[in-house]
């Protein structure tokens, strides 16, 4: 026992600060008016709640795929550039912007493309353009693309010039090099990136909430917040917990895909 002494505080802390809320969430989700039951979960898979869950999944999927593709192109443009300054600048900026979600991000975009935003006045955009599905996707890409750059840049760095030369010497066109050499090596990293971006967009709450997106595009995180604060109706707290459980299930599936991919993607990068 004394051998584990150093690890005990952490284990105890996690049991308290993570274990208790997790148990409370599951217990609450399965409690309907004081007695055990599946009523809350059933409710979350119907009507407005199901719609919100669907919106969240759709938005996150669109952002994940677009972010991964755009991020990969951006990373490749930077990684193969001869300018060291450009590389440093883009990677540092990515480090900041990938961690810069939340409230300030929402206000940046409201000031830019919101109803009285600088750019929307300049271009005469219709009011409310930002507060749509695609508007929110554009906002979410602002942290998703940098996140992808950070994830994929090491993998792109790992593509050895020798592989391209070997392929060229054997008569491969650039397209064939990418299709049969580079892409297979990059695939685990790319998929891992998509999954990570999906998870990040799916969990995002602050940005959508600060933009007031709840009325035009209900998302599951916004529904949970509304249920918890009793905005909708009192006694809906346990429905919020059931929605949380739905989210955890989706996020767990995502992680179950991501972690093995991440391990595979490092294989070629030694």
């Amino acid at each position, binding site marked *: 026992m004394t051998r*584990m*002494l*150093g*690890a005990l*505080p*952490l*284990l105890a802390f*996690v049991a308290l*600060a*993570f274990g*208790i*809320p*997790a148990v*409370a*969430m599951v217990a*609450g989700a399965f409690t309907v008016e004081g007695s055990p039951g599946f009523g809350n979960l059933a409710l979350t898979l119907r009507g407005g709640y199901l719609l919100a869950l669907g919106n969240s999944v759709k938005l996150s999927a669109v952002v994940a795929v677009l972010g991964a593709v*755009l991020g990969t192109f*951006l990373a490749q*443009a930077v*990684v*193969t*550039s001869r300018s060291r300054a450009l590389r440093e600048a883009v990677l*540092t900026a990515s*480090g*900041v*912007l990938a961690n*810069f*979600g*939340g*409230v*300030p991000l929402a*206000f*940046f*975009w*409201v000031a*830019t493309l919101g109803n009285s*935003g*600088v750019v929307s006045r300049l271009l005469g955009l219709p009011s409310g353009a930002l507060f749509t599905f695609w508007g929110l996707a554009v906002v979410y*890409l*602002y942290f998703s693309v*940098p996140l992808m750059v*950070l*994830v994929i840049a*090491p993998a792109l*760095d790992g593509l050895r010039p020798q592989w391209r030369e070997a392929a060229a010497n054997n008569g491969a066109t650039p397209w064939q090099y990418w299709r049969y050499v580079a892409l297979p090596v990059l695939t685990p990293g790319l998929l891992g990136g998509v999954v*990570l971006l999906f*998870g*990040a*967009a799916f*969990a995002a*709450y*602050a940005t959508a909430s*600060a933009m007031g997106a709840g009325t035009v595009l209900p998302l599951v995180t916004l529904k949970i*917040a509304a249920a918890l604060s009793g905005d909708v109706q009192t006694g809906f*707290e346990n429905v919020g*917990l059931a929605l949380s459980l739905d*989210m*955890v299930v989706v996020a*767990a599936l995502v992680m179950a895909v991501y*972690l093995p991919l991440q391990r595979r993607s490092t294989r070629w990068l030694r």
Partner: protein
Amino acid sequence: MTALAPVAPVPDSVPVEPRRRGRPRLWRAVVLAPAALYFLVPLAASFWYTVHNEATGLSFAPYAELWTAEGFLTSLLLSFGLALATIVLVLLLTLPAMITIRLSAPRLRAVMEVICTLPLVVPPITLVAGVGKSLQVGGEVLAPTPFWATLIALQDQDFPLVLVFVYVVLVLPFVYRSLDAGLRTMDVRTLVEAARNLGASWPHVMLRVVVPNLRSALASAAFLTLALVLGEYTVAGILGYQPFAVWIVTISGAKGQLSVAASVLSLLLTWLLLLTISGGSRDRSA
């Protein structure tokens, strides 16, 4: 708060591309120009939004007004205080645990890995749902016992420790990975045994032998924690506290310009912190 990305420790030993002569790379411009536009326009537009309005023209008044605005300093200080407490607590918990695993309890490694991955599966909003419920139930159950006072103290409005605990859980995966990467680069067992054989006490071993070798890993763990806590809105907002991010939203209704100015400030702050920390750790290693 969105998922935190590790601040990429991009390897310095980048294979240098063989110089290619001939046609300029058109596709690179096609990628970089729209990207620059997409990332820079919101920054420029937001700045313009804060310094220009139709009534007064160009003026930097919102930035001056910020300092005197009600709640600005209190909320900012609260955020920094929470961040500092979170950094200290998370490092005090994880560092001894990870060193123990390497020295004497390797079988715990799998357990640690699972524990430090679990928070990734639980989005902040769902964690705070569980925390809110626990506090509520805890309040009812513990009311007749002395622990009730402890529970109330955790939720003190001036310095809500409950937020620190939730934040520690949220950053655990990132701190774990960062420290794990740092510990991989050194031979912990040999270093510690050598120091112990030479008569160093345990605190001495930790502070003078292990920590200096982990400088950059600790710096990146600290930066990630700082960035997360300073921008954190979900947990604090739902539990009803008012650190910086919540304050920005609170004033946005009445003073739009001010909330954008505060957003600009918080981006600058994040940027500055990152540069300081990465610059600091680079100086040492150079």
